[in-house]
């Protein structure tokens, strides 16, 4: 199949986004917006992608749906109601009926006045903030006022403030960028003269002139360009990141009228603004003629004009209605597995919270009942208020209400049982982790100069738990840099010796005006074929060779661009095009002396063996994924007309007239088979001469179809199918797509890490298998099960057979304890059509889960998603999909983690992905190193936060039992507020970002260590309960040691509260310190700094005379018992933990533990062997 890979219903129209994208603010803040957009993304819902997913089914039906009208906006016809009418060069009339928006853009969200309300509104969309708010509001009720006003609002206010400042800063930058963008000058036709106008004043309907290297200010329909044929080249790098030039055409009807000289007027009817940057549909009425307009006639805002002196167009979409702006939204967000599990535990914690509250309120109720009669004058209750004339109850609303109030009050006091701040810390930690992933120079691709990109910020830790990797082949495993290798021309295979053309005369070149023009890329050529192609005689074979190369040079959408070199007498021809296969073919044709040197919308010029020939391009049927071929109708100089078709072999052999030369067809098929079995991509080329009658019929129907208003795409396809038949076979080409660097090693590592790698490709089975071998995915020891069926019944049968075989084989291997031989499943798309979405899925799943490797070939984009869904819906295992092209978008969005390769095939995959990188092999550091770290860090951080908050709550709870169940806290309210804000917040974040359980080296050497994440070793229900038991023990120690030590003494509550505060903060931080594995200066600073900060805060709080606890800490610190208690608490609370940890470390060491020890003692061991240094030398 060719490089024009089936283009998916572009998710550009659904869920994609253009990360940081409009032209202006892209350049200056490349790194920061990445992070920022990431931060925000968590709050956005993935409605778009979900709704898209929901509408898809993956079997045969799905495919047809995908290709039919329903999906792609560009194919839909314009309804009168949905149309936008643009009067060319008449902005007044255009804007008279409908108020189209002006061209000023506002990416800034807020203005000075709306900032506060809008920002607050947006922030309170988060559950965490709502929880804080509700608690704060409850606390404001006088009956419930547990904390003072200030203390209760502080945590919420501080979080809101920090976020607001961050938002304001970002918005200010956006405003600044907007201002620059809006005030940029562009040239607009006013009163038949081009005048400079600010970009923001451009209106729909106005005519805009853009010069070379200028950025387009709004979406314009091209009317004419400096090129007489009306071609304009644009670079869309700001829009979709593709750096190659694309061609845009002015319509024949308008290209001769240069605005300013000729009067131009007309009416454009186009679709409503939408976000599909690859589609546009409109028609234009000029001089009473109706002309259809498509995506190739519009230049979008943000593109840059290249290689064209100027272009003139009429503005159709402006400002925020431009496609670039419509695409400016966040990435779809996913929720990480760990977070899902965490939420389960948070529900448990809220049960704990409710239980504690019920206990407290019930006890309070009992207490009040028992003392019912005494309450009136009880000195510490005094229900009666005697200060009024009438003695009445003071602040007492009856037993029931008192119980209810004490329930609410206990919710307020114990609120941090639910670690809401954890969500905020997690976000910060993920930003930090993303920072390190982006900055990792092991994941920087020097070749494409791309860094790692973190597009979704919610799933960093998922990278550490992946069980299945679904990989695309082309451009993902391979480089997608095509090189023409072999050709089979009319049944003769030219795959002989190669001549290197480097250095010699520098390959084929031509002379133009005394200058040497040569193709930019050099191709190895077959000497025999080269000789044959140079001899021009009328033998049949040389004619066939001529036609073959002519087809290669002509049947494509490549644009040759002449580039200057340092040598003034030498110019290079750079073939620009969207498909690397076509580029390779055109370069190959050039090397054999068929050099394409000019292409316009109407003709092409090809230099054939030094002789320049001009062919009229009468029509072109572009590639589509149904036909899997493209064709061009060429008018020869001698006015004969021929149609050239190239496409995938499966569809091509159907339209080739085999009766013409059966043996040629047969031998070509053989050649194709041998090419693809060594991993080459093949294309078949065919041709047919058209009679005048045939041509006329075609032309009329082509014209009708291409200007049709209804179902244009379908009509064009029908026209194409009608002409593409009875072809005579010219030959076949074989293109090599090299394996990317490091792919076999990467696959090996992944496999060792216990990750199953599945390859899903649109390529042929033979190609897929050969790539499988060269990438070490398949080994000769593996048993291959190939499923290749054409009906449901046969599929069922082969699945059943395969299951039996695999079971047998697995039993055998189990007996022989040899894991080298395993099963590889190879299945093709046709079989999948029958299997997916039917009851056979279950069997396929069973079979696939027994196989070490699964290769799916010839799969359609939606089938890829279907296969991912097959695993995702049936197991709890995490899936990762990696791909580079538009055809991978569906599986990238379907998988738990989607990785895009920012390579040759555009940016659609990257735009749909969660992470993007330059090379497949970066998957290894990404998952094995960063994924592992992120998972360990995040898992630990969650457990630690549960522990930290629960510990504090338990201590408060124990005290409540000694206060007549009245929710007094001896710990000052400020300390309880600052506990999770200052006292203990920073170390956990620092550790969550920086701690590494193992070095990069160990993780790369022992990929098996990755298994700890897959087995959920660092976060599971058991660990949660163990942590909670430990928490309970520690809280008992912290609370009861001082209680018993100061029992029957004259200790006041502030002093005891200070002791508890310090003790809890100390042990919480020491607990963390015990688990830190790598002590950098930052971890030292944060942990010890937090302890010091706590002491300072406690001292400051106790230095305020207006608080009841004035000077308590100083009195306390002067007593010996305080210090002894503190020391005792620290040691006693840590002992059980320490014992368990040491015991596990010694007797049941986990792999990570051993690797960690090995890391540390490896050097020491080597030294021991040489010298006399003791191995277990304490390193301190």
């Amino acid at each position, binding site marked *: 199949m060719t490089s024009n890979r089936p283009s998916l219903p572009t998710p550009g129209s659904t869920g994609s986004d253009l990360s940081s994208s409009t032209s202006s603010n892209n350049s200056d803040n490349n790194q920061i917006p990445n992070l920022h957009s990431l931060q925000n993304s968590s709050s956005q819902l993935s409605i778009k992608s979900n709704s898209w997913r929901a509408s898809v089914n993956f079997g045969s039906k799905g495919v047809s749906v995908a290709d039919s009208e329903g999906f792609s906006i560009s194919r839909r016809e314009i309804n009168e109601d949905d149309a936008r009418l643009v009067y060319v060069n008449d902005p007044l009339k255009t804007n008279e009926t409908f108020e189209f928006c002006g061209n000023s853009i506002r990416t800034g969200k807020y203005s000075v006045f709306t900032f506060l309300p809008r920002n607050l509104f947006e922030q309170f969309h988060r559950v965490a903030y709502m929880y804080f708010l509700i608690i704060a509001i409850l606390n404001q009720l006088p009956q419930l006022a547990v904390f003072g006003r200030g203390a209760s609002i502080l945590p919420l206010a501080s979080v809101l403030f920090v976020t607001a400042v961050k938002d304001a800063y970002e918005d200010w930058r956006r405003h600044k960028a907007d201002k620059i963008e809006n005030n940029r000058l562009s040239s607009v036709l006013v009163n038949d003269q081009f005048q400079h106008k600010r970009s923001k004043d451009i209106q729909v309907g106005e005519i805009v002139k853009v010069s070379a290297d200028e950025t387009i200010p709004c979406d314009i329909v091209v009317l004419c360009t400096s090129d007489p044929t009306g071609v304009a080249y644009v670079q869309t790098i700001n829009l979709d990141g593709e750096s190659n030039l694309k061609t845009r055409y002015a319509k024949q009807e308008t290209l001769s009228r240069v605005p300013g000289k000729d009067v131009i007027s007309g009416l454009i009817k186009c679709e409503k603004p939408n976000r599909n940057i690859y589609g546009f549909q409109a028609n234009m009425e000029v001089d009473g003629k109706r002309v259809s307009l498509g995506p190739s006639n519009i230049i979008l805002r943000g593109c840059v004009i290249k290689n064209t002196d100027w272009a003139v167009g009429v503005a159709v979409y402006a400002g925020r209605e431009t496609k670039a702006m419509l695409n400016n939204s966040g990435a779809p967000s996913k929720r990480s597995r760990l977070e899902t599990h965490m939420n389960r535990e948070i529900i448990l914690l809220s049960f704990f919270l409710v239980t504690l509250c019920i206990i407290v309120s019930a006890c309070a109720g009992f207490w009040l009942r028992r003392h019912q009669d005494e309450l009136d004058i009880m000195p510490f209750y005094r229900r009666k208020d005697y200060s009024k004339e009438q003695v009445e109850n003071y602040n007492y609303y009856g037993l029931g209400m008192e119980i209810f109030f004490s329930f609410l009050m206990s919710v307020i006091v114990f609120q941090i049982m639910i670690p809401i701040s954890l969500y905020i810390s997690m976000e910060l930690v993920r930003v930090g982790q993303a920072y390190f992933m982006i900055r990792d120079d092991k994941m920087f691709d020097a070749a494409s100069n791309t860094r790692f990109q973190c597009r979704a910020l919610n799933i960093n830790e998922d990278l550490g738990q992946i069980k299945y990797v679904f990989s695309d082949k082309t451009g993902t495993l391979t480089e997608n840099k095509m090189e023409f290798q072999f050709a089979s021309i009319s049944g003769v295979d030219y795959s002989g010796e190669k001549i290197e053309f480097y250095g010699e005369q520098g390959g084929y070149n031509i002379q133009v005006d005394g200058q040497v023009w040569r193709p930019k890329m050099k191709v190895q050529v077959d000497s025999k074929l080269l000789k044959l192609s140079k001899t021009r005689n009328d033998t049949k074979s040389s004619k066939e060779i001529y036609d073959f190369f002519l087809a290669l040079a002509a049947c494509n959408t490549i644009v040759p661009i002449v580039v200057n070199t340092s040598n003034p007498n030498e110019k290079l021809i750079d073939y620009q095009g969207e498909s690397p296969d076509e580029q390779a073919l055109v370069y190959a044709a050039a090397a054999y002396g068929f050099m394409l040197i000019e292409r316009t919308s109407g003709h092409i010029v090809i230099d054939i063996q030094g002789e320049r020939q001009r062919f009229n391009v009468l029509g072109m049927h572009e590639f589509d994924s149904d036909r899997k071929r493209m064709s061009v109708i060429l008018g020869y100089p001698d006015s004969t007309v021929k149609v050239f078709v190239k496409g995938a072999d499966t569809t091509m052999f159907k339209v080739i007239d085999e009766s013409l030369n059966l043996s040629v067809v047969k031998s070509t098929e053989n050649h194709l088979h041998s090419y693809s079995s060594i991993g080459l991509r093949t294309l078949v080329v065919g041709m047919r001469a058209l009679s005048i009658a045939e041509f006329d019929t075609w032309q009329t129907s082509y014209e009708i179809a291409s200007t049709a208003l209804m179902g244009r795409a379908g009509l064009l396809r029908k026209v194409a199918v009608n002409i593409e038949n009875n072809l005579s076979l010219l030959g076949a080409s074989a293109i090599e797509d090299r394996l990317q660097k490091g792919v076999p090693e990467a696959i090996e590592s992944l496999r060792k890490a216990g990750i199953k790698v599945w390859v899903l490709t649109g390529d042929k089975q033979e190609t897929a298998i050969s790539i499988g071998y060269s990438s070490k995915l398949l080994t000769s020891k593996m048993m291959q099960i190939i499923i290749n069926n054409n009906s449901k019944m046969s599929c069922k049968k082969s699945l059943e057979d395969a299951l039996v075989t695999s079971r047998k084989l697995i039993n055998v291997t189990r007996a022989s304890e040899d894991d080298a031989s395993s099963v590889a499943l190879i299945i093709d798309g046709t079989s999948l059509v029958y299997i997916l979405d039917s009851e056979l899925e279950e069997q396929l799943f069973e079979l696939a889960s027994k196989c070490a490797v699964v290769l799916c070939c010839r799969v359609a984009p939606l089938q890829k998603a279907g296969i991912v869904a097959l695993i995702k819906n049936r197991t709890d295992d995490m899936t990762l999909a990696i791909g580079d092209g538009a055809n991978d978008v569906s599986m990238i969005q379907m998988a738990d983690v989607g990785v895009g390769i920012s390579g040759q095939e555009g940016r659609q995959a990257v735009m749909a992905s969660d992470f993007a990188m330059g090379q497949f092999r970066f998957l290894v550091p990404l998952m094995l190193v960063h994924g592992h770290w992120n998972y360990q860090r995040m898992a630990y951080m969650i457990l630690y936060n549960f522990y930290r908050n629960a510990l504090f709550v338990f201590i408060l709870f124990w005290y409540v039992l000694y206060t007549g169940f009245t929710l007094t806290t001896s710990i000052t309210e400020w300390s309880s507020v600052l506990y999770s804000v200052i006292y203990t917040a920073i170390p956990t974040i620092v550790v969550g970002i920086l701690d590494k359980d193992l070095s990069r080296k160990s993780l790369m050497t022992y990929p098996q260590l990755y298994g700890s994440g897959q087995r959920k070793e660092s976060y599971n229900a058991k660990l949660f309960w163990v942590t909670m038991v430990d928490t309970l023990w520690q809280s008992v120690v912290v609370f009861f040691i001082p209680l018993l030590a100061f029992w029957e003494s004259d200790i006041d509550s502030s002093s005891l509260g200070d002791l508890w505060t310090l003790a809890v903060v100390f042990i919480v931080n020491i607990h963390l310190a015990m688990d830190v594995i790598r002590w950098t200066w930052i971890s030292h600073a944060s942990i010890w700094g937090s302890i010091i900060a706590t002491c300072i805060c406690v001292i400051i709080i106790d230095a305020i005379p207006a608080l009841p606890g004035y000077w308590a800490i100083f*009195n306390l610190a002067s007593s010996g018992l305080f210090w002894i208690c503190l020391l005792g608490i620290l040691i006693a609370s840590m002992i059980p933990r320490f014992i368990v940890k040491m015991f596990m470390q010694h007797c049941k060491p986990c792999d990570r533990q051993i690797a960690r020890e090995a890391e540390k003692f490896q050097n020491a061991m080597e030294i021991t062997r040489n010298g006399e240094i003791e191995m277990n030398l304490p*390193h301190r």
Partner: protein
Amino acid sequence: MSNPPPPMSSTPAEPQDPSSPRRNSKRPKYSRFTQQELPACKPILTPRWVISVFLLVTIVFVPIGLASLFASRDVVEIVNRYDDQCAPSGSRSDKVRFIQSAADKTCNRTLTVPKHMKQPIYVYYQLDNFYQNHRRYVKSRSDQQLRNKNDENETNTCKPEDTTENGTTIVPCGLVAWSMFNDTFSFSTNKNVQLPITKKGISWKSDRDHKFGKDVFPKNFQNGKLIGGAHLNESIPLSAQEDLIVWMRTAALPTFRKLYGKIEVDLQAGDTINVIMQNNYNTYSFNGKKKLVLSTASWLGGKNNFIGIAYLAVGGLCFVLAMIFTIIYLVKPRRLGDPTYLSWNRSPGGH
């Protein structure tokens, strides 16, 4: 402390791409920080370390525990519960009626000194079942008012004891001050020698200097229908009312002691002390107990064996653990970092 090896120059020479010299490379700038290679120490608890830690804890804890126990043993403490004895026997309501009546509440008690008591001897009163940490109670005070004459009217936190019936403010306001303890004690030896009690300096100096105003005088105090406890001399500023200051430092726990005064003479073993007390304070209404405590002090404070026992227990436990771990390490040694223990090396092919 092992530092990681210096960062490998793993950055290969960047391939020079002649076609794009103007594009600046986006290669992340190398720094040890961004590559997460900051120098770090990676402590690993080896068996030797574990045993040393346990032994260290033993060595530190056992002496401290012993010292605490000895200190606690040296403290001589006389505790005498008097609330039941100093009221007519009978039902609780009788006692409540008695304590609320105007009857003479003088009560004589005799204490015997069990051991030589060195001065200073601290005289405490102890209340049981008195929730001085009750939420309604602790909130019912105004620290501003206590501190500053101008903040006299800051009484809205003091309810229900903020103003008198006619609306004038009470100084000091609130339940805490209102319920101030008002039993009095005077001591004499069996030779009828008066034992002087020093009541100066029983409160915190910081409270006297900064928390209670020198210009704030009691006003309208204890004038309501319900008398909660002590009256205050309206001519003495709050900063000099040390009993009030002590009382206002609310206790942490429902059983608490508060310093009443100090006896600054030694008491000999066998001495009997006569205490004449005014049993004014009503704890009968809520089943509270009142005790009189005479105690010497050690460096650890009062008599309390808990901390000593706890320390000895922890120290002993750690010693036992050190032994257990020694045995484990001897019986089942494991070479640290031995790759043969890795799970995939232990059971080939078994994942």
